[in-house]
């Protein structure tokens, strides 16, 4: 009763490659979206830009934040004599020296005053202004870019991880995968699954792609393990190992690693989340975790992308900043202006971009928050212009409707 077809399909399982399988894409065009890579990391919970990129040159900062450890005398790494990098991100200093790391300070979305994480994130990812109620927003700015990109296919953009990524949601097809979505089936189970899906194209193709990605991930994990410990034999890499590996840093790295594995192939845009920035209490301790993970993710991307790093831009953006002053529980509350972290070989780095507004009472927004001096969407817009050739009209009308791009801050090489 076992057919020849069944055997051939079963035997082919482990040898299958991306090229041999039809992808989920509904559009397949000959043109490709170029060789530039963009990684967007959404920092959920409101990263305190004043702690990650500390304007320690302004003596007010230390006065406003007596318990938060300000400046090089508390371990932060001097960047340019005025700003210093949070010590948990010290690992990034070589990138800074090479010009592959930069920051933009005092930026925000147009969102003001209510300071809700959810509305703030919705607006950041939708890329819209205050004229559109956030509950009416149905797609994200990266998706609108894809919609306008000739030759974009589903695998051109990847949303990585279990978190929903509204920034990539919308009409243009995009791929989604979480490193822990590995298909945990035995070889026989896979062969049988292919058999029962044979006549249903929707299930057949989705399963084939899931198997391909799982195998690619497993193969890469094996290589990584062999390189890390060439002498240690005996342990077999199994699907799911990376994801269940101890520690939040490994989990974050697994996202970056998987994103890099896709970006080395045909993917040009990857988006994922990094949570944990809502540091209302004991910020000196609480911010170390997410800051360490962000630095580690960026270094993982650099390492794993290899030569492609030179054509890569990483944008790490958050929904809003936090209060300039520390609060009653040695933390900070929801604010307005914040910072964006940028990295990659495509960057003209080694500097802090943006117009610094100052920290004096009169310079603050509503007397409490860092005053935003630029729209974060303008930076995202100039990134899309430089990386993918999106023109001003497209950016200001379709991708970020109503945005005034302003002058090019020229942060790309």
């Amino acid at each position, binding site marked *: 009763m076992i057919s020849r077809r069944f055997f051939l399909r079963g035997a082919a399982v482990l040898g299958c490659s991306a090229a041999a399988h039809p992808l989920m894409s509904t559009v397949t065009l000959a043109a490709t979206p170029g060789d530039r890579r963009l990684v967007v990391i959404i920092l959920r919970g409101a990263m305190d830009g004043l702690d990650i990129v500390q304007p320690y040159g302004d003596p007010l900062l230390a006065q406003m934040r007596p318990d938060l450890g300000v400046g090089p005398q508390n371990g932060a790494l001097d960047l340019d004599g005025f700003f210093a990098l949070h010590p948990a991100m010290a690992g990034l200093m070589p990138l800074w020296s090479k010009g592959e790391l930069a920051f933009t300070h005092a930026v925000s979305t147009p969102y003001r005053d209510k300071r809700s994480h959810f509305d703030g994130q919705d607006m950041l990812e939708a890329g819209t202004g205050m004229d559109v109620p956030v509950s009416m927003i149905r797609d994200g700015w990266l998706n609108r870019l894809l919609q306008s990109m000739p030759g974009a296919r589903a695998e051109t953009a990847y949303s990585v991880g279990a978190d929903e990524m509204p920034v990539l949601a919308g009409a243009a097809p995009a*791929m989604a995968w979480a490193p822990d979505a590995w298909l945990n089936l035995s070889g026989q*189970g896979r062969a049988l699954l292919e*058999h029962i899906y*044979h006549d249903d194209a*929707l299930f057949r193709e989705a399963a084939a792609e*899931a198997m391909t990605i799982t195998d690619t991930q497993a193969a890469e994990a094996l290589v990584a393990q062999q390189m890390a410990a060439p002498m240690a034999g005996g342990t077999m890499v199994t699907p799911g190992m990376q994801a269940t590996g101890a520690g939040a840093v490994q989990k974050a790295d697994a996202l970056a690693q998987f994103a890099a594995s896709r970006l080395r192939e045909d993917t040009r845009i990857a988006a994922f989340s990094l949570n944990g920035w809502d540091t209302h209490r004991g910020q000196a301790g609480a911010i170390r975790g997410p800051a360490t993970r962000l630095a580690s993710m960026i270094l993982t991307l650099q390492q794993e992308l290899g030569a492609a790093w030179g054509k890569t831009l990483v944008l790490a953006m958050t929904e809003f900043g936090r209060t300039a002053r520390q609060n009653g529980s040695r933390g900070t509350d929801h604010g307005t202006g914040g910072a964006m972290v940028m990295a990659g070989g495509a960057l003209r780095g080694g500097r802090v971009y943006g117009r610094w507004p100052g920290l004096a009472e009169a310079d603050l927004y509503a007397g409490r928050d860092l005053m935003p001096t630029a729209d974060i969407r303008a930076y995202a817009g100039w990134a899309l212009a430089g990386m993918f050739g999106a023109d001003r009209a497209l950016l200001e009308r379709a991708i970020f409707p109503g945005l005034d791009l302003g002058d090019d801050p020229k942060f790309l090489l």
Partner: protein
Amino acid sequence: MDFATLAPVRFGFGLSPRAVGPQTVPEMLAALRSDGVGAQFPGMQTGVALKMRVDFVRLKRAERDDEPGAAAALKAHKAALHDALVDSLQLALARAVDDPAGMRERLFAFWRDHFTIQGKRREDYALAASHAEALRPHLTGSFPAMLRAAVLHPMMLIYLDQNSSFGPGSRMARKKPERALGLNENLAREVMELHTLGVGGAYSQDDVRQLAELFTGLRVLGEAGMQFSPDLAEPGAEQVLGRSFGGDPAQLEDIHAVLDTLALHPDTARHLARKLAVHFVSPAPDPALIDAMAEAYLGAKGALMPVYQVLLEHPASHGDALEKVRQPFEFMATSLRALGLSGADVMGLSGAILRKQGYWPLRSMGQQWLAPRGPDGWPEDAADWIAPQTLSARINWALKAPAAIVRDLKRPFPDARDFLPQALGPRVSEALAFAVPRAESRVEGVALVLASSEFNRR
């Protein structure tokens, strides 16, 4: 397909070894009329949810002021609010496995989605669960009554920003000009676009604006919930769809009147008929089916049973092609039902199992419980649910969850060969009959059945 075979697939949650489903349309209609499982498994009440919401705000303030014990109390209350979400999933699964015909609970899911809300803030989690419960008395009753219950519920007023909409000429706005109080059109727009007339319906931007003005005065006040405050209402009458509503003094009855008018509009009849047909039958339903359902709706002045009767009886509903895919919640409920769980079994599952094998896997399958992305609810296309990542999550669930669940209930794991006909009845395909006995373990055998397209399509 004959009705007895088709009913549990297209209109229910599949087969259960514990019950014989309806064999005929009249039997199905009879089953729809009583809400036995709702009485057996009562859900979150709006009053309780409002109190939890008020308590959250109070505890948060106490914690900020460093009151003794407040931090621990807030932590416990946060957990209780999250539990309210997981509890509502547990209830929905229990009702789905015990509903004799399955269709009542499928309708519950349908209307919950039609009136999508999301409690985005922690304080609103229990209130989100209570919104669905407020729809239940109307599932087989009248749509105008359900519309009122859904739109005027405090969760909807919060979700669609009605709580921050004020008549620009209201007494409150004139008294406090510095607050620049004004209209928020969000609820008015979605009531017309999503809940009643549909996006193609005969309304204009002016109608949205006028309806938003008519809605002013609706607000959510602490434990009292929805209140109508004439002080916030825009003075004067409003013109909606060419008819005049309200006047001075503004009153809640005017809002009831406009909702009734919208509910019984022919465009609403077509919008609801089409949505039901798309959800239950096909992404491109036979226009004759939609016409017949819309006609039944208008003839019965918004009563829903005559509409369901048409849906069940119409030949266009009986096609063999299974063009729809079970959404993740349905997939999970259908699996538990096929495994022979009772509602009491589901209610007896441990919290850890519910989280690990219920709440979180739903998220991986692309359907986080009570958290659709926007007010237009979950997508309906098969391809929206079966992508590499989400199909992988279904398969991995099919591999892990059944064993974990029967272990939690101290039951033996089924033999995959027996489970196959138990789950699919007369619909076992040749390919499945071939594959299941060849699985290398009982666990993989059962997983193949649950992962099969026969089991996932409807």
